[in-house]
């Protein structure tokens, strides 16, 4: 029987404190501890950074690469709300949550990375801004997006839970929901303009790197290629997350929705590769890509990943296989990540002989902040209705709750509020 995703349903009857979850939290906690030490000791002792490679993985990976992956709320939202891909509405909550967590984790680490964070308050005073700085655009636009439209877009699942578990607030929640609906199009508008601005500005950052960025990457098209890459990376990240959750939590998947996502991702990747090649040829650097050096190698690695992803995406839809589709989106995401990582680090040559490799603590903090985001997602998917499922799944969840109630279990599993009756177990 074909499954059709109809609504978001919490992952129920699964314990929260599983072993992988504990590991993620432990790494996260360790990272937070080391963060404190970094603030006191300075960037030098904590990282492998130096004056030639002044930007390390906290900026180039956690911010510039991972917010690309966190662009699902942006790109899938545009497809759903602007281009009326109605099927995609059901995955929007997953997209918005992955985006929010990716941005929050990246922005926090950005604040750890800057040397004089106490001066960030100038962000609130536009007359102190350097309007032409791409970095200002990023520094203002990113938090603005994460803390305004993206946060607001993530409020409905929370309201829904409050509605179901706290009858005394029901009226208030309904009022809030009405206001939300009224202003939703205006919020959504911001949620697409702001990321279009800062995701392209992330590319514009490297423009000022001038000749230090290798010619295969340094192009006036950097902003366009960056925001475009964010578009397909967002799709791949959300599709990958959905498929991973399907496999791990043994949920059913909707082949129609995923086929649609595969197709759009494939189109985005194909057109991106075309623009990349045309730009390369137009700038007269196609032959540079054929020279036998590490940079040409990196370039073709990117292209290979994306080319293979393109094929796998189109092919995997036919096989009705969640694993295959998951691999396809992983390959696509890695290709995009490589592209966004290369001009900042691997293809960035400040001067001959300069070298950077992240220190152990730097790596640990970087992984730790990602772990926190992943753990938060796993937790929230169990507490809130995020992941898509069928209406039938919802009824099954309710029946399981009723059964548990009848058996007289006192402590209900977190994440399984009684959505049907609205009665809280804690009453």
């Amino acid at each position, binding site marked *: 029987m074909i499954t059709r995703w109809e*609504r*978001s349903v919490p992952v129920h009857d699964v314990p929260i404190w599983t072993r992988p979850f504990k590991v993620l939290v432990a790494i996260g906690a360790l990272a937070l501890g080391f963060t404190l030490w970094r603030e*006191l*000791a*300075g*960037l*030098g*002792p904590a990282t492998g*950074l130096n*004056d*030639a490679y*002044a*930007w390390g993985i906290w900026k180039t990976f956690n911010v510039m690469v991972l917010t690309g992956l966190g662009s699902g709320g942006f790109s899938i939202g545009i497809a759903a*709300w*602007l281009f*009326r891909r*109605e099927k995609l*509405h059901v995955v929007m909550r997953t997209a918005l949550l992955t985006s929010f967590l990716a941005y929050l984790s990246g922005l926090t680490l950005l604040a750890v*990375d*800057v*040397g*004089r*964070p106490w*001066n960030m308050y*100038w962000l609130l005073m536009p007359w*102190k*801004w*350097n*309007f*032409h*700085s*791409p*970095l*200002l655009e990023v*520094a203002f636009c990113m938090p603005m997006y994460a803390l305004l439209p993206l946060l607001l877009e993530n409020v*409905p*699942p929370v309201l829904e839970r409050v509605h179901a578990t706290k009858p005394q607030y029901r009226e208030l929640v309904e009022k809030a*929901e009405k206001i*939300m*609906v009224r202003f*939703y*199009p205006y919020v*959504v*508008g*911001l949620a697409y*303009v702001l990321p*279009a601005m800062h995701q392209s500005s992330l590319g514009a*950052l*490297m*423009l*000022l*790197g*001038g*000749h230090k960025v290798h010619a295969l990457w340094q192009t*006036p098209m950097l*902003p366009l290629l960056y925001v475009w890459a964010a578009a397909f990376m967002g799709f791949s990240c959300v599709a990958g997350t959905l498929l991973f959750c399907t496999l791990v939590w043994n949920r059913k998947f909707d082949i129609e929705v995923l086929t649609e996502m595969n197709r759009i991702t494939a189109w985005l990747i194909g057109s991106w590769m075309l623009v990349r090649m045309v730009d390369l040829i137009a700038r007269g650097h196609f032959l540079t890509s054929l020279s036998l050096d590490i940079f040409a190698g990196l370039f073709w690695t990117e292209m290979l990943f994306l080319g293979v992803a393109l094929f796998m995406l189109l092919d995997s839809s036919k096989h009705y296989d969640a694993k295959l589709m998951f691999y396809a989106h992983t390959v696509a995401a890695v290709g995009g990540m490589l592209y966004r990582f290369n001009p900042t680090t691997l293809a960035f040559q400040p*001067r001959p002989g300069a070298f950077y490799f992240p220190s152990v603590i730097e790596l640990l903090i970087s992984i730790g902040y990602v772990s926190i985001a992943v753990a938060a997602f796993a937790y929230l998917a169990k507490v809130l*209705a995020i992941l898509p499922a069928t*209406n039938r799944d919802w009824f099954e969840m309710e029946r399981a709750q009723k059964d548990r109630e009848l058996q007289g279990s006192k402590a209900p599993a977190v994440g399984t509020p009684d*959505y049907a009756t609205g009665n809280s177990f804690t009453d």
Partner: protein
Amino acid sequence: MEISRRAALTKIATGTAAVVATGVAGSVALSGVASADEMKQAPANAVSMLYDTTRCVGCKSCVAACAQENKMERDKRDPLYLAPVDLNSFSKNIIKLYKPSETGVYSYVKAQCMHCVDPACVAGCTFHGLSKDAKTGVVTWTSSLCIGCRYCEISCPYGVPKFQWEGYNPKIVKCEFCKPRLEAGKDPACTSVCPTHAVIFGKRDQLLAEAKKRIAEHPDKYFENRVFGEQEGGGTQVLYLSHVPFEKIGLPNIGTESIPSKYLKWQKRLYQYLAVPVVLYASIVGVVRGNFKHHQEHMKREEEKTGLRAQL
């Protein structure tokens, strides 16, 4: 849901209007910035240094004078006093040696901030933590405006700004042309002590003329008979004459256009008056409002059918 003919026409009309409006706003923004695109010129009274490799004997008096004047901390990693391999957060001015072989031509070279006419570091700096003085053209750092993002280190083509990697209160370190001395009517420390006048201080126009005079007097002495900094990277206020190729002594060949005007052209246009983002926002909201209404109606019908609350 059937879309009525009238609704469809309205939609097409609004869509077209949005595209046209974006186009108009875009072209207004483009024309508005055209004037700002002109090459930036050095201020009339731009202070300047001229360094001549053929006159430098590598005595490092300038290095010592600089360290003394700027009260630089001692670099504990440096076993010899004041002998760093490269500029770092303990040294704003150093003398390096270029010696490709034991017997061939060699050269000393002085390294410090070039005080570009249109500096990339200033263009990228978020809150004007690095700023260029409108009168003297000196590029200085202000601690209260710097967030320590190190974008200046990424953007400087000469690798000049340095960051203090140790401690909780790091600063950006670079030559600031001995600004307090200039204000007191004195020359910068390095030029005032140079025994061979390899580095001299003056107004940019004067020093350019001086450099060209030296080239005219000795047509075969200097590399390409060129003054580095007259046009390179949009012009710099520290000028170089060299008997070895400039690239060999750390002065990269980056063309005559300044980095900001070369690379940020389109970025500036896109954000001029915020016209493009605002029109884009308005058009998106226009389209989404229609689609949202349609979606809400669909959700309501589903709610009635299944008895489950609609989800946004």
